[in-house]
């Protein structure tokens, strides 16, 4: 089993490296970051350096999550559409092991991306000679955990839907969207009367159910807001980070198990 997982991971890494769509997307994201941050690297005053490091970390982290999702979606949909999964499961390698290897490969690449972001931002601290803020590690680990949730969710959706549908679902079916919808409908319900109130009530119940089902990508956002802005380690609650990581790993595992079950039920011909 270990040998098969390693063989799959090796091939998956080649897939990520050779996939043109991922290459173009990655290059584009890197270009956007470079264009938006490089000029200010030389023009800023020292007081603005910390703000710039925060912005760079946030932007690169966002791109790492997008790339992570992209890797999972292209990996699953490519192999299902081209039916090359058939060549895997007609060997002693079950579909769940294949899916696990694919998801682990994406996690591995994302981990490397986050390590690179940490290195870049830490280098900037050294370069500008400003006091190192351990909150950076906290923020990046928290974001890495978020990427776990996103990648698990993307893998699950990719098993059951086509890539475009998956991406649309990822855009629309987000916990944050439904959280705001919940608040909106709750305030609308206060002033609603008659048939309109019934309609709003039904809509609110539907939104509540969907919100309950959807994975929460950043479970402790409100408590982490300060450390995201200041990057100060003293603002960080490391126990909370541990809970976030555990939660993200749980969601990732749940999505993997459900995805495996659904994959087994698919006619892979």
């Amino acid at each position: 089993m270990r040998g098969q997982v390693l063989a799959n991971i090796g091939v998956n890494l080649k897939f990520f490296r050779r996939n043109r769509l991922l290459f173009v997307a990655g290059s584009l994201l890197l270009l956007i970051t470079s264009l938006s941050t490089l000029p200010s690297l030389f023009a800023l005053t020292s007081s603005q350096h910390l703000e710039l490091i925060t912005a760079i970390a946030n932007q690169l982290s966002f791109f790492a999550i997008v790339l992570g999702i992209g890797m999972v979606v292209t990996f699953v949909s490519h192999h299902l559409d081209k039916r090359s999964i058939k060549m895997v499961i007609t060997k002693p390698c079950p579909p769940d092991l294949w899916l696990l290897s694919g998801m682990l490969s994406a996690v591995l690449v994302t981990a490397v991306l986050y390590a690179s972001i940490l290195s870049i931002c830490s280098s900037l601290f050294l370069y500008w000679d400003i006091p190192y803020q351990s909150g950076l590690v906290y923020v990046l680990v928290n974001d890495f955990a978020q990427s776990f949730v996103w990648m698990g969710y993307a893998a699950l959706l990719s098993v059951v839907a086509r890539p475009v549908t998956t991406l649309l679902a990822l855009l629309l079916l987000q916990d944050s969207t439904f959280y705001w919808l919940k608040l909106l409908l709750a305030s609308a319900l206060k002033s609603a009367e008659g048939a309109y109130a019934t309609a709003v009530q039904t809509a609110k119940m539907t939104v509540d159910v969907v919100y309950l089902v959807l994975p929460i990508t950043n479970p402790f956002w409100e408590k982490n807001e300060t450390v995201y802005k200041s990057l100060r380690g003293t603002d960080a609650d490391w126990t909370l980070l541990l809970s976030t990581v555990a939660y993200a790993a749980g969601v990732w595992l749940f999505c993997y198990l459900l995805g495996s079950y659904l994959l087994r039920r698919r006619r892979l011909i």
Partner: protein
Amino acid sequence: MIEAENIAVWFRKGRFGKKLEALDDFSLVVEPGEVLALLGPNGAGKSTAMYCFLGLIQPDRGRVSVLGQRPIPGSDLFRKIAYLPEEPHYHDYLSVREAVAYYAALHGAGLSERSVDNLIDRVGLTEHRDLRVSKCSKGMKQKVGIAQCLLTCPEIVFLDEPTRGLDPIMVRELREAVQDLKRGGATIVINSHVLSEIETVCTHAAVIKQGKLVRKDRLDDLRAVDTETYRVVFSAPATIPEYVAGLHAEGDLVAGEIPAAMFWEFTRHLERSGVALHESSLKRSSLEDAFMNLVGQVS
């Protein structure tokens, strides 16, 4: 070795479309060491039957057993199985060498780099070992498939349209590879439309039509089924039996065709009528004749 018992597979065209029966009450037993051809017109259910044997489709009804186990994709059973797909569903972003090495690793075959190279040499892809599978021609992709079938010493080999896109040299190579596997005691199931190939390689054939098994038999027995005829030339008697077909005059004589089974009765009839049989020759039937005959029978 392989057993399908009253299996039924349904497909639906779209989510709410009409239900199509790909296999209906299909039963088949493949004994160890048999080289079985699955024959049938397009859409008869040959590939579906093969997918059921591989566990890629779970039948909606009935039971399939391979080596005494229910085939589950990716299970340990596949250590003893090799499969060549009809369409080249290989990992096209890998090079030929990487693909073969990957499939070997999945098998847990633990092949050395040299063994992988030898296998690539054997299928004639030496010059293209570093070429991406996506850049390979259809025939070259088929060779990749053949190479991955030869990675281990399988007990059962499933070949879905194996000669598709292959050049004549490779067809011969494939035939030899199949003969090697056969000599090694492997049970082979081939799905092919090239009847001449089947005649040279297979020991048995199963004819499928509209999802049902029409007949499974040894090739020799299958060829003999109601299809062998005698061409006879004789002096015209007062009455000619109705089983004489294709009657026509040949000078002063009459020529026609009679079923092989009726030959002795026909000679006795001529004897009783006091006329001579001038010529008789056995027309051996081909697998194609038998196939057409069997497929025609159920329509």
